[in-house]
């Protein structure tokens, strides 16, 4: 028997609310603890109970962790989706199902291996409580998979013990359920299968964490003290992570009082209003939201841009427009975030690609917002925010000081010759600000969304208005020098590929697939907007650049064309927007199609 190790996609098809999530997570975590790279994707409905949900785990020794098309092992536990689930199996794949009732003939496929296990029947004499029986179904298949895939059993039992720490009476029944599944699989099924796992050291010191949790921690480390938010999928867990960890890490040692404030606001308008009020008054503050929230916050974002108030937003993007597919991923808020609000407004954006970057950018965003006195929006997405991904461990430099930007103290106010809130003293477009209550006589000014002169006095003078708008442009150019630099990997190919955020996940795999076709691409991962010089240089250096977007309208390409005045013909769009994350196969296929349509030379042809 030829055995394939550590390279498969397993899909768990469950009913939402059936308790499957913790069993499925334990499956992924067990493999991770065996040192095997895994990526999880929870494909869930906008529903609390009864609708179908899927949990994919991609297992890949080589570290390809983007979504991959096709399923090798299907754990089909949901009768509602059975037909589609069986159909999604790759030929030669394995169909694991509960055969307590026989499988209807029309559901059978001759080109896959059926692994039937009478889970319900096995549980009937073991657990009298109906609810328990339902929950333990998930644990039984986990036990069976341990035998079928050769997962180290003590790793799983260790996870159970950890999960139910403090609820010891739950540990034994769970382990018993695991044993039932494992024993049945050893006795009656062809365990282990030719697809197996084995211990590896490919994980290294990486951690398995979701982006929202990492971002919440980043906001704590970055010194945020005010979090105002309104619940919206897929961003909710970011605010919740901030609160959870702040309640552990940000309490006064003596009194237990909080060095932070979390307000669940009445809506997104209020959430951003609180953030702006706090930012104006000198507290680092943020909100977490998604596309519909950004739409609601747009008027306020214009105020913050024009009145020059620091604010940080996390936009965990989902599929729009409107309510769209609220539990599916997309990168479709680029334009609405970049230009949120009426009038000439532009906002600083950051594009994290990994949980580690969610952490780093959360802290960086707080610095940038203070330094630039403007809103900064961190553009995460559901794929990154809500799924556990392998990530470099989070690190913090204990020497790091927060950059609070140009804020004058009472002493500094007395030293400066003249104070004008909107005077461009340093030529970088950023004025000096003061916080309310600083000095009895000096530095007070009135912040407003209406036009004002350099001394913050209301004016409708056309010249003063224009000067102010031009200074804001200068500030925008300053911002471009402060963004995290794009990651560029170029070996001198004539064609490049530009991508951002979670399109990074399948990129290496896609480029390797293209290489096999004789297509070599230089690459650039954009990490911030306004774009730095290196982004335009990259485009300049290449004849053609593929721009990868997870939205229908090629929004990153539009941003590049508008902001860089780039010839649109030079930017070829690669797009995926069906609500799952982009796969290597998609990138590979679309780039190849472009190459064929444009008759671009392959590597071999260039070399010959």
């Amino acid at each position, binding site marked *: 028997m030829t055995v394939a190790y550590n390279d498969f996609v397993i899909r768990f098809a469950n009913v939402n609310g059936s308790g499957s999530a913790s069993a499925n997570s334990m499956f992924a975590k067990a493999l991770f603890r065996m040192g095997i790279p895994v990526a999880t994707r929870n494909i869930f409905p906008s529903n609390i109970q009864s609708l179908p949900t899927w949990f994919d785990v991609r297992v890949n020794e080589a570290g390809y962790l983007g979504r991959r098309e096709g399923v090798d092992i299907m754990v089909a536990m949901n009768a509602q989706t059975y037909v589609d689930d069986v159909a999604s199996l790759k030929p030669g794949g394995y169909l694991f199902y509960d055969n307590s009732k026989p499988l209807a003939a029309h559901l059978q496929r001759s080109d896959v291996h059926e692994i039937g296990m009478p889970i319900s029947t096995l549980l009937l004499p073991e657990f009298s409580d109906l609810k328990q029986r339902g929950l333990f179904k998930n644990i039984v298949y986990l036990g069976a998979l341990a035998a079928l895939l050769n997962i180290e059993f003590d790793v799983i039992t260790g996870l159970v013990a950890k999960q139910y720490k403090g609820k010891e009476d739950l540990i034994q029944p769970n382990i018993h359920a695991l044993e039932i599944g494992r024993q049945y699989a050893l006795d009656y099924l062809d365990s282990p299968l030719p697809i197996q796992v084995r211990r590896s050291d490919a994980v290294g010191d990486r951690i398995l964490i979701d982006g929202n949790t990492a971002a919440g921690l980043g906001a704590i*480390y970055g010194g945020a003290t005010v979090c105002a938010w309104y619940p919206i999928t897929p961003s909710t867990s970011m605010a919740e992570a901030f609160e959870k960890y702040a309640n552990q890490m940000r309490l006064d040692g003596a009194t237990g009082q909080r060095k932070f*404030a979390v307000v669940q606001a009445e*809506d997104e308008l209020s*959430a951003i*209003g609180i953030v702006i009020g706090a930012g104006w008054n000198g507290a680092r503050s943020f909100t977490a939201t998604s596309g519909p929230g950004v739409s609601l916050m747009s008027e306020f974002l214009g105020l913050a841009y024009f009145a020059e108030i620091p604010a940080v937003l996390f936009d965990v993007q989902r599929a729009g427009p409107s309510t769209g597919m609220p539990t599916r991923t997309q990168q479709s808020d680029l334009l609405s975030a970049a230009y949120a609000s009426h009038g000439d407004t532009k906002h600083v954006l950051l594009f994290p690609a990994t949980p580690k970057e969610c952490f780093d950018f959360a802290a960086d965003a707080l610095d940038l917002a203070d330094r630039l006195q403007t809103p900064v929006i961190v553009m995460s997405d559901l794929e990154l925010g809500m799924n556990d991904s392998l990530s470099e461990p989070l690190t913090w430099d204990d020497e790091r000081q927060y950059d609070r930007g140009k804020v004058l103290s009472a002493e500094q106010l007395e030293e400066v010759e003249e104070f004008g809130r909107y005077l461009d003293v340093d030529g970088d477009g950023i004025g000096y600000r003061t916080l*309310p209550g600083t000095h009895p006589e000096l530095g007070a000014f009135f*912040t407003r969304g209406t036009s004002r*002169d350099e001394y913050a006095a209301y004016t409708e003078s056309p010249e003063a208005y224009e000067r102010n708008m031009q200074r804001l442009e200068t500030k925008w150019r300053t911002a471009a020098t402060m963004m995290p630099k794009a990651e560029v990997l170029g070996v001198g190919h004539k064609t490049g590929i530009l991508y951002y955020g979670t399109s990074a996940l399948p990129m290496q795999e896609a480029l390797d697939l293209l290489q096999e076709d004789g297509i070599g691409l230089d690459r650039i991962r954009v990490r911030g907007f306004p774009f730095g010089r290196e982004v335009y240089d990259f485009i300049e250096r290449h004849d053609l650049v593929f721009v990868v977007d997870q939205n229908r309208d090629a929004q990153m390409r539009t941003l590049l064309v508008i902001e860089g005045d780039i010839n649109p013909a030079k930017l070829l769009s690669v797009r995926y927007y069906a609500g799952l994350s982009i796969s290597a196969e998609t990138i590979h296929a679309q780039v190849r199609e472009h190459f064929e349509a444009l008759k671009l030379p392959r590597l071999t042809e260039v070399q010959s």
Partner: protein
Amino acid sequence: MTFVAKPRIHHPHLPLNEIGLTRRDYEGSVSTLCAGCGHDSVSAAIVQACAELSIPPHRFAKVSGIGCSSKTPSYFLDKSHGLNSVHGRMPSVSTGANLANRELFCVGVSGDGDSASIGLGQFAHIVRRRVNMLYIVDNNGTYGLTKGQFSATNDKGSTNKKGVPNLYEPIDLASLALQIGASFVARSFSGDKQQLVPLLKAGLMHRGMAFIDVISPCVAFNNHNGSTKSYEYVRAHSDNVVNVDYVEDHAEITADYDPGTCEDLRMPDGSTLRLYKLDDKFDVHDRVGALNYLQRRQEEGEVVTGLLYVDPDAADCHDILDTVPTPLNALTEADLCPGNANLERVNESFR
């Protein structure tokens, strides 16, 4: 319109407060509102209240929304910072400002359009959050800056300047505040400085959100027969107003009457203003009683003014959130950053 600085010439005999400052130290720039606007009287009352309390004039945070009312924070306390935000959103911005620095006196000024229409949701929720601030609504029943449309506080049947009646039921912000649990609710009249100044002082010193609905007639669009927010109507139907002074073209009408009584004032246009002053027997600690009383008098076409309800022991937003006494904006890296060693422990929990 341009910014006009107020001349800094002090009257030599202005009285000094406890910190050696005069009323002039609490003023702002010259108002750009219409002459006789009730809002300017409110601003003047704020100046007087703050001066009398001897609070250093830079220790306020002034926040407003959009509208005539929301321009007024320019016209008082110019040693303090102010933020003129967006329409209907003063409450959220004030919440943030107060969360950032609990030591400043937060004064929010809004209007009836700002608080009862576009910002009604924010109004309701800041009451629930009990943010420690003074929340003033300059209530004139009309949209002044857009030239005279009805606002949601305007009474049904009341007419606009062209005689067209309002067809919709009014929203009474004071009743609403009582109903959703505000710990300080008052109503006053812009022209009644003797009542308004003590209420403002009490509101500033109240821990939690102090809401004061100030009927403040719009001389341009809502001060005619048929309006129930005119100087004339309010004076004629006020239940519990203490003292009224009314300034139009430098003419002043004053009222002076005892608590528990009504007073009828003859107005220059021939109308009558009836005031009713809440007397000492009124229980300001009975929320449900206040609500009933307000509604009953309202049914009779009377506007109750004065302190309607106060709970001096109520928790404020910071109590509820259990924040440290140090202002959050004064915390430093040492307070805020848990350090890399803790982060390594966090990493370990994700392995």
